[in-house]
């Protein structure tokens, strides 16, 4: 057994990792490209569904277990996945890694496809109307996942094969899985940051700031918006799949729009939109506070007059209201992202302005 503070730290880290991934994807679409993405849950849920439905079935088929509609029936599902974990994944680290990566790729593809499909309404609708449409998409998929049993077990959910079982069981598995999760989150952070500092990120911001000027200066708005939605959807789906693997089970019910759309919005607004480091800070603050509330809920219950569980909701609502009122740019406002080092730019500038002064 590990001391309790280690569990607290692991809890903070894993919350931080998953919401960093999801909020970065939201920031790419909303902060950079200016799309009101109120349906973030759609791609997250798609990724989780892939993790719940695909790798288990593949292995079940391979070992001669039920892999069709019955796979998602909880009467069969639990024993099948238990056997997969014990007999196939636990003794096979390479296969486990392969299954993990393969599932993430499939999840990214599905998330990307959903993002691409979302770009159709994004062409015709603007702002609030688009936001509502995307929100409805997210809810629609949740309803399908919640009631169509053959997919991922409807209300009973499914057990997700455990690619971390090869690390062990108990504390070392929790630590390993958390660190791997964090590793993915950092990779994704570096990826979106390099995109953000590239001409692509700059074009997205230009489109956000003035659509008509971006078009006149050669930007294909339809294509740019499509790319933002595809990449954002793919990243969010990877986050959803990693979360389902980490949790070890997948219930569509738990992928609600409060947790996977509005929370990321609050994190992004708190940290600062259009700026990945701001998102990093916002998610870190929130994950810490949420984990603290969760861990100390019994202590809190004796000093506050409401259920501690409500604190999280109150906190999110309060942050959205206060940030919009007093600091709409967030803790860390968007700063110009230089594509080339400042020194290098100054050097080019000197060379040109001094040449002219001589002439």
């Amino acid at each position, binding site marked *: 057994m590990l001391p309790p503070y280690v569990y607290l730290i692991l809890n903070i880290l894993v919350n931080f990792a998953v919401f960093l991934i999801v909020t970065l994807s939201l920031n790419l679409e909303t902060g950079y490209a200016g799309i009101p993405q109120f349906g973030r849950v759609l791609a997250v849920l798609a990724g989780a569904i892939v993790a719940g439905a695909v790798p288990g079935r593949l292995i079940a088929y391979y070992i001669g277990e039920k892999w069709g509609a019955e796979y998602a029936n909880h009467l069969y599902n639990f024993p099948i996945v238990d056997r997969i974990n014990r007999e196939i994944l636990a003794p096979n680290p390479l296969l486990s890694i392969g299954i993990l990566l393969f599932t993430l790729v499939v999840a990214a593809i599905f998330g990307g496809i959903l993002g691409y499909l979302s770009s159709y309404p994004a062409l015709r609708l603007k702002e609030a109307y688009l936001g509502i449409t995307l929100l409805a998409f997210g809810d629609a998929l949740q309803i399908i996942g919640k009631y169509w049993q053959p997919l991922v077990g409807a209300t009973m959910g499914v057990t997700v094969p455990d690619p971390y079982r090869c690390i062990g069981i108990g504390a070392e598995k929790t630590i390993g899985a958390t660190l791997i999760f964090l590793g993915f989150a950092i990779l994704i952070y570096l990826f979106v940051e390099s995109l953000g500092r*590239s001409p692509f990120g700059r*074009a997205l*911001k230009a489109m956000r*700031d003035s659509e008509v*000027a971006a078009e*006149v200066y*050669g930007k294909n708005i339809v294509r740019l918006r499509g790319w933002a939605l595809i990449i954002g959807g793919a990243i969010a789906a990877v986050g959803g799949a990693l979360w389902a693997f980490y949790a070890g089970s997948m219930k569509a019910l738990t992928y609600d729009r409060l947790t996977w759309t509005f929370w990321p919005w609050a994190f992004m607004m708190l940290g600062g939109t259009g700026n990945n480091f701001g998102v990093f800070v916002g998610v870190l603050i929130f994950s810490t506070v949420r984990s603290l509330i969760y861990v100390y809920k019994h202590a809190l219950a004796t000093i506050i007059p409401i259920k501690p569980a409500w604190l999280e909701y109150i906190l999110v609502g309060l942050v959205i209201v206060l940030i919009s009122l007093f600091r709409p740019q967030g803790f860390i406002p968007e700063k110009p992202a230089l594509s*080339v080092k400042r020194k290098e*730019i100054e050097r080019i500038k000197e060379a040109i302005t001094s040449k002219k002064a001589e002439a």
Partner: protein
Amino acid sequence: MSSERRRYILETKDLTKAFGGLVAVNHVNIKVERNKMTMLMGPNGAGKTTFVNVCTGVLKPDEGEVIFDGRDITGWPPHDVYKAGFVRTFQVPEPFLKLTVLDNVLVAIGNKGENPFRGAIKWLWIREEKENIEKAFKILDAVGLADLWDRQAFTLGAGQLKMLEIARALATGAKLIALDEPIGGTDPAYANDILSYVKGLLKIWDVSFLLIEHRIDIALPFADYVYVMDRGKVIAEGLPDEVANNPKVIEIYIGE
């Protein structure tokens, strides 16, 4: 046709655009000669900006044709018009507010790294980026914005935003640039400097200008050929002197 094509970079034929009952651009035929500064003047509400919007694809025309560089570009979306080599500035500046002055210009120049697959890998676009930065500073220096390169556009004053509009358009290296009231709201000495600079570019670049202005006192001396619009129609055209003495033009500018 081929000699026509060689002589004129832009030609509109019966171009028409109506908003409900208001015909903002009414069967307009305008030709812009290559390597010249063609001026389109007229009082407020004459339809000058609508004309530019229809030519550059910001608005779709109801009737007529836009021939650019020998190609029919009628109804093309703006980003295709840009690729063909035709850009315009905005009368009311449309800067990318949170981007720096330099980035505003770099967006206008464009870079292959705007494709996300290339964008993620820096060495695929960094060389082009550095060349573009050089290009951008040459223009920024000329319009007096070089020292403000790292300022976000929303911190600029009205006159500086006007210059940024011009800088973005010039940096694209387009074949035809429509300047929509580029000197509106700037002081006469500054306006003179800018127009002299722009006019000077005709000698060193393969570029043509369509200058939209209503400040004829400052702009007319720079024009090679002038069209006058009023209430959606072209009412006069000719060399600057002819137009300045045209009774119809005097009437709309000074009154009867």
